């Protein structure tokens, strides 16, 4: 079920009212309702893959129980290893098997050996990269003593399958989300109001911004051979907005929906295009994934300690793994490499500057130029991310920088939408800029109720009059 679908518009209020009106003050019943609703939500896409979520949940729940009573460190390690193995195997089979098998075959062909290997051509189960990472973090955290395992299977099943964040995150830590399933929830009007504002803003980002820009992005990336350099630049620029609004829009709806049921999810985006450097960007973009890799890959590898070689190696590993996490394609791998290179280059030339700064003075010309520069290099990276193949990505770049007719204007159809897409982007960017210190731009508590509701109405009207209501899945469903 898609967040931007008619089905979800029926589903969410139904579950919400049942949750608070029928099962209020019955935590166990509420959790069972969440499991049923979540399995229905996921099964709406393809019920055959519900078994995978269940297997992943049962394995990690059982390992958690095993770790509860086990003191033998060797056996504990083996249990955690088993959890990682099962989850990574699910990922490996469904997401990476064909990619690696084809890669091996091509490598052997390069040396003149044609090996006979079969690809499986399996459908990629939606959200598999998200829930496997979430359940893995559970057993790892127990092993590290960061949390105690839960004895309640119901709580655990609800934690893994919780529909707002099941298919595209945020990737929650068990230590943060699981305890929320074990405590009683009380209806909170502040949560409801904040949740609704987040859902409205998320829908606006997805339906109005992302889906409208997608029309041109697809047009340009699918036919990049015929367009001028300027048009290709516009294509990459629009994709930057598309992917941001698509994914952060999803996260907003997820966080907002979770709030309706009394759950707080972690923030996933913090106005990433206002980052002043690449390090800052990765603190603001897909925060739940970057922090996951920081905690479970980068730090265990040694983090920023040790020799310069080790530090750089760790950075490279994290970005390459992060790249391949996004999809079984060389383009993602290269995108990861590129960001690793950015990160290392930044570290090389700006020692000490990468420290967290909570207040940034954008009126300083240097900071402003850095912000624009960061946006541009990130945009350059998105070309690899969006292209179908590495060949396409390099050809796109070649046409972008070396086309004979760089400044030739090209009308992209639908035309008027092209104009208003840019108007919307400008308005959207200004609004986000103005709201950059807020969690959500639609948190308008400083306004009078009339003004606040007027803004909500305008956003709502913009969605229904200028949104795109074709069937567009969220980009991150593919990961």
């Amino acid at each position, binding site marked *: 079920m898609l967040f931007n679908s008619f089905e979800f518009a029926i589903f969410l209020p139904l579950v919400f009212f049942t949750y608070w009106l029928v099962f209020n003050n019955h935590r166990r019943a509420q959790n069972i309702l969440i499991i049923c609703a979540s399995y229905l939500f996921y099964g709406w896409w393809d019920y055959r893959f519900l078994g995978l979520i269940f297997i992943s949940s049962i394995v990690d729940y059982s390992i958690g129980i095993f770790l509860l009573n086990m003191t033998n460190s060797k056996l504990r390690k083996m249990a955690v290893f088993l959890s990682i193995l099962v989850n990574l195997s699910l990922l490996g089979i469904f997401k990476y098997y064909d990619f690696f098998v084809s890669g091996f075959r091509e490598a052997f062909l390069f040396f003149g050996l044609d090996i006979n290997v079969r690809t499986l051509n399996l459908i990629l189960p939606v959200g598999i990269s998200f829930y496997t990472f979430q359940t893995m973090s559970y057993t790892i955290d127990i092993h590290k003593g960061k949390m105690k395992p839960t004895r309640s299977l119901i709580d655990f099943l609800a934690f893994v399958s919780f529909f707002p964040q099941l298919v595209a995150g945020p990737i929650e830590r068990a230590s943060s989300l699981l305890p929320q399933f074990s405590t009683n929830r009380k209806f909170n009007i502040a949560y409801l109001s904040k949740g609704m504002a987040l859902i409205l803003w998320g829908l606006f980002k997805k339906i109005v911004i992302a889906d409208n820009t997608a029309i041109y992005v697809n047009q340009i990336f699918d036919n990049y051979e*015929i367009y001028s350099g300027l048009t290709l630049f516009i294509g990459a620029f629009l994709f930057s907005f598309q992917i941001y609004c698509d994914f952060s829009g999803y996260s907003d709806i997820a966080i907002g929906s979770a709030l309706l049921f009394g759950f707080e999810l972690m923030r996933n985006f913090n106005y990433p295009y206002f980052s002043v450097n690449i390090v800052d960007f990765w603190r603001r973009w897909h925060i739940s994934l970057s922090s996951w890799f920081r905690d479970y890959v980068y730090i265990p590898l040694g983090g920023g300690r040790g020799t310069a070689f080790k530090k750089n190696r760790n950075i490279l590993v994290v970005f390459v793994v992060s790249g391949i996490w996004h999809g079984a394609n060389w383009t993602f791998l290269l995108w990861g490499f590129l960001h690793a290179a950015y990160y290392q280059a930044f570290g090389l030339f700006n020692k000490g500057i990468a420290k967290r700064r909570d207040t940034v003075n954008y009126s300083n010309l240097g900071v402003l130029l850095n912000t624009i520069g960061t946006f541009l290099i990130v945009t350059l990276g998105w070309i690899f991310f969006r292209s179908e193949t590495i060949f396409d990505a390099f050809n796109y770049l070649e046409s972008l920088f070396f086309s004979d007719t760089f400044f030739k204007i090209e*009308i992209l159809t639908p035309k008027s939408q092209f104009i*208003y897409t840019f108007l919307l982007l400008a308005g959207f960017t200004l609004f986000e800029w103005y709201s950059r210190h807020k969690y959500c731009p639609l948190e308008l508590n400083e306004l009078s109720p009339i003004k606040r509701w007027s803004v909500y*109405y305008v956003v709502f009207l913009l969605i229904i*009059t200028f949104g795109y209501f074709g069937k567009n899945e969220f980009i991150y469903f593919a990961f």
Partner: protein
Amino acid sequence: MRSVIIKIVISFIIVLATHLVLAFLANGTTDQYYQKFTLKSSPNLILGTSRASQGLNPVFFNDILEENDFQNFAFTLKSSSYGEVYFNAVKEKTKRIDSGGCFILSIDPWCISQEKGKTINSSDSSSVLFGINHFDQKPNFEYLWKKFPYGWGMIAFRNFEKFILKANYRYFNENVNGSFAQVAPDGYLRVYPSLDSLFVVKKEIRTFREYEKKTHQMVFSEERFYYLAKLIDLLKSKGEVYLVRLPVHKTMLEIEEDYLAGFNSHISTLLTKADGYFDLIEAPLDNVYIDGNHLYSESATKVSQYLATEIKRFRNADTY
């Protein structure tokens, strides 16, 4: 609680009223199909895919054949390849016509082909005609609700844009690559393209590459051919039926001949059903194409005039 309900009702009324007004603004600028779903039933129709939609202008058929209500009811390869969906749409569109009609069916190897491994039902479920029951309502709420994927504010925006684009057509044609299109009140899709030679060549290369790929992906479909024959039978009971093969770029023609060398022999089996077949591939017209596949509107004018004259000549010869 009462005030909340009142607010909800007022909001609902505002949204509904806004949409009602917007629906009345819908016209040929809305998208490349909408206008065709609003035309009153007519006995004279041009049918086929995008080649006919852009290549056969009803105005010239009205003039030369002395008719007054020719309509272009051709769509795209995806939407109006011959099959059950298009057949039913035409059947519905002509249900009030008993006799005296004139129907021009554009044919080519692609509109009687089907993607390998797919049924025509699965392909045609993505047709813009699929699931539509009304083809002559204005505003056509059914179409706007089911097939127009944008918020209806776009309808107003595109109306507004029409004036800017038309007023600056000369500027755009000279300085801007790309095209814009508008459906005329008779259903003809007029495309305003840039004829920048480099851009046209790039578009041609893309088209040829795309169709080269299609030659491996598609195959002649007995089922589509059956529906073409069935459509001819249906229309024959309501008037004259003419088949026409529109001209294309010579490279495109080579691709088509490689793909379906037996096209003419397939069509020859239909000639006893139709009143005439006009193969305009070799017609002495110096055509210009916007992408190797579709005629430029000035060439479409020439082709339409030529075809209408040929039909007139055919009719006269038949009379004597």
